């Protein structure tokens, strides 16, 4: 094995930007006509899109079936030139395993890379996010020459470890996380190795899903391989490799031109998490965005140190990957989603930081760390771009996950382990010209869907007691965030079914508003063991709760051992009839709520998308509750009075800051934070290590 043997390769993960052009790629540029290039780009994108759709159609896991899929075509050096996905982090991270394969296996006699091979990987050190994200890639040869790779990265919701469902709140080191596979050959001569599949199945809880997902990725890749070979036959191999590389070059050039249009300056957005997995505690991701000329630098100095013995850490490459949810989706929304975009981005991470994990540290909750950061770059980005194009300014959306994770025997006695799909039902952040879209998706999975409840009920031992909008799930504002959903699950026809939750934000909201818009409220999980809900259902009791607000109401007739839990909830056993309730957050608000059109508030009241409490106390409108008729004069007066209240309440900045600075969180909340309030004060060495910049 060339390079560093039998340990993680820290060199290859630095190569996030496109590799230098090869001599063949340079020579091929002269062959490429602009019109033919456009036709080629479109064709290649259609091949990738077909691959994504095929993967979804054939997959078994929740995420694969509902769109958590990235399908791409990589250069022979491993750069991801063409990618079909709404999971934009994969558009820049998906290449790292390929670069590993090129570096380590092409010239390794005991492995090699040959026509008919297939490779698997799920070590997040190379994929960047977490080990539930698993990938498969195949090389494409033409007359014996390696032309490109084709691959699919998909979230398969079970990866072994201390808890089912792909994330482990209790993990203390990487060895608690389960399956962690660096790129490995799993097929030769167009055949998968059954002994290796057998090993994967033995190391995870849901063997059927694990194997079906691998075969789905491979089948889609083989279809795309046929299509690509047709293109090569049509255009010629030199045109093909030159044009594939040109996509990356053009993307980088366009990204730099876009960045040059933005105002130079420094944009700051500190982010706070309130859980480390098994226990509460504050940590800080200190994001500073420096925009100068045609470059954006993301600096993380003074972020909390690595959290030892807890899973709330991320590799730096995962943070960079998630930044592309913003870059691909908002700033560069009209450019190809590939790692050429990073030609406009620099980054600086301190060593020994929760956003730059090293050694054997667990990163099982890295998705939570990364989304918390990403919501910050949406806010910093909104301030950076408003002057250039206000439509690019959007409040944060999603929430701190709140994913039910589960494992056990389903109603047919089969082993299942996964997540439910409601993370794809969060509401969008509000925008300058509109409310956030209700139950739109996940901000990092924009092409994904939350499925019908019946599809989930078909092979999971759940009965949804309801799933609908929850009017306390978004942030208020002149434009409100899109509503998220609340839902209830009743476990049935099984016993000792393990059910937990992954997420953050039970104490400190993760999803913030913009320009005076409010945050998404905290979320938590309610569980009721020994519930009487089945009995109430059997008697068609009309008082059954139909939404999350009714679950929380004092007159809810459900009885049992009720407990409210942190949204970061270690799995516990549920028996037949036990229930579980949670809200999936919506979007943050945009602008001062006193500027919201009163007619929009009334429309929301008619549709039960806002409470009367919020209409009166946040939006300050005056209306008749029975008829929902607006009193315009009284509304005007109430809002004017609210502004006067603010002016009486407000202090000068200096006076406020003096009193404010005397406070701090309690000591137990700062156990993992580092020095207060600047986590790295006193740490040596003081200077940030420049990872790339």
């Amino acid at each position, binding site marked *: 094995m060339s390079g560093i043997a039998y340990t993680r390769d820290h060199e290859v993960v630095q190569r996030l930007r496109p590799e230098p052009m090869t001599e063949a790629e340079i020579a091929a540029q002269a062959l490429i006509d602009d019109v033919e290039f456009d036709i080629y780009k479109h064709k290649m994108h259609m091949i990738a899109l077909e691959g994504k759709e095929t993967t979804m159609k054939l997959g078994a896991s929740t995420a694969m079936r509902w769109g958590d899929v990235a399908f791409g075509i990589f250069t022979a050096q491993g750069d991801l030139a063409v990618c079909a996905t709404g999971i934009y982090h994969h558009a820049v991270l998906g290449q790292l395993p390929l670069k590993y394969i090129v570096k380590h296996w092409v010239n390794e006699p005991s492995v090699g890379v040959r026509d008919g091979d297939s490779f698997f990987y799920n070590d997040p050190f190379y994929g960047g996010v977490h080990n539930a994200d698993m990938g498969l890639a195949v090389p494409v040869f033409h007359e014996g020459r390696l032309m490109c790779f084709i691959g699919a990265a998909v979230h398969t919701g079970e990866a072994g470890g201390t808890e089912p469902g792909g994330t482990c709140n209790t993990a203390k080191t990487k060895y608690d996380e389960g399956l962690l596979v660096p790129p490995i050959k799993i097929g030769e001569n167009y055949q998968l190795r059954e002994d290796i599949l057998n090993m994967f199945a033995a190391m995870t809880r849901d063997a059927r899903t694990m194997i079906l997902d691998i075969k789905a990725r491979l089948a889609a890749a083989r279809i795309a391989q046929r299509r690509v070979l047709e293109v090569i036959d049509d255009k010629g191999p030199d045109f093909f490799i030159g044009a594939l590389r040109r996509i990356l070059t053009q993307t980088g050039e366009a990204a730099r031109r876009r960045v040059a249009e933005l105002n130079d300056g420094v944009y700051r957005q500190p982010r706070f998490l309130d859980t480390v997995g098994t226990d509460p505690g504050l940590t800080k991701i200190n994001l500073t965005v420096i925009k100068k000329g045609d470059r954006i630098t993301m600096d993380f100095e003074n972020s909390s140190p690595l959290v030892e013995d807890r899973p709330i850490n991320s590799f730096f490459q995962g943070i960079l990957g998630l930044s592309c949810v913003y870059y691909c989706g908002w700033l560069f929304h009209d450019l190809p989603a590939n790692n050429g975009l990073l030609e406009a981005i620099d980054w600086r991470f301190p060593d020994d930081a929760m956003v730059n994990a090293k050694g054997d540290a667990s990163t099982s909750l890295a998705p939570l760390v990364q989304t918390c950061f990403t919501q910050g770059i949406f806010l910093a980005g909104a301030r950076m771009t408003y002057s250039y194009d206000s439509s690019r300014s959007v409040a944060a959306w999603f929430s701190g996950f709140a994913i039910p994770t589960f494992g056990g025997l389903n109603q047919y006695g089969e082993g299942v382990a996964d997540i439910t799909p409601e993370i794809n039902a969060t509401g969008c952040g509000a925008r300058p010209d509109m409310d956030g879209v209700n139950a739109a998706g996940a901000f990092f999975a924009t092409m994904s869907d939350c499925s019908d409840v019946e599809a989930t009920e078909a092979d999971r031992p759940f009965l949804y007691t309801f799933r609908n909008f929850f009017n306390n799930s978004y942030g208020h504002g002149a434009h409100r965030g899109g509503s998220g959903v609340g839902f209830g699950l009743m476990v049935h026809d099984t016993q000792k079914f393990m059910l937990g939750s992954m997420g953050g934000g039970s104490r400190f909201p993760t999803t913030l508003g913009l320009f005076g818009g409010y945050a998404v409220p905290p979320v938590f999980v309610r569980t009721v063991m020994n519930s009487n809900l089945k009995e109430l259902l059997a008697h068609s009791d009309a008082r059954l709760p139909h939404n999350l607000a009714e679950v929380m109401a004092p007159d809810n007739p459900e009885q049992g051992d009720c407990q409210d839990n942190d949204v970061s909830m270690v799995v516990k056993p549920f028996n037949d009839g036990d229930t579980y309730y949670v809200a999936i957050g919506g979007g943050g608000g945009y602008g*001062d709520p006193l500027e919201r059109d009163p007619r929009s508030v009334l429309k929301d009241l008619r549709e039960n998308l806002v409470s009367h409490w919020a209409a009166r106390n946040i939006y300050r409108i005056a209306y008749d509750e029975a008829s929902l008729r607006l009193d315009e004069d009284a509304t005007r007066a109430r809002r004017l009075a609210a502004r006067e209240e603010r002016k009486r309440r407000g202090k000068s900045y200096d006076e406020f800051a003096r009193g404010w600075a005397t406070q701090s969180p309690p000591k137990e*909340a700062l156990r993992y934070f580092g020095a207060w309030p600047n986590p790295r004060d006193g740490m040596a060495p003081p200077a940030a290590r420049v990872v790339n910049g």
Partner: protein
Amino acid sequence: MTKVRITEYLDIALDSEHWCCNRCGHALGSARENYKHGCLVAERALEEVHPPLVEGGSYSFTPDSRYCRLVEFYCPNCGTMLENEYLPPGHPLTHEIELDIDALKRRHGVSA
């Protein structure tokens, strides 16, 4: 006077190098400093914005005040909420936009 829109509620008057409230035009201080220095600032009770839906529980849809506080920034003239911040108690207020004013003036053809 050349004004440039920076955010929903903030303009910069390039000639005088001042932040201004976009709604009423009130000057909020030097554009080379944090615009929040020119705001009225108040901490809001969390329950006034995020009411508890669970009586007396440790989880209630209201942020935990030991971990999180809500600070609001108002225009001193018109009372518009220009921004708010959710911060741990006592955490320094954020200087969130620090523009290169000389570069901004060059971009808009105003002499430095």
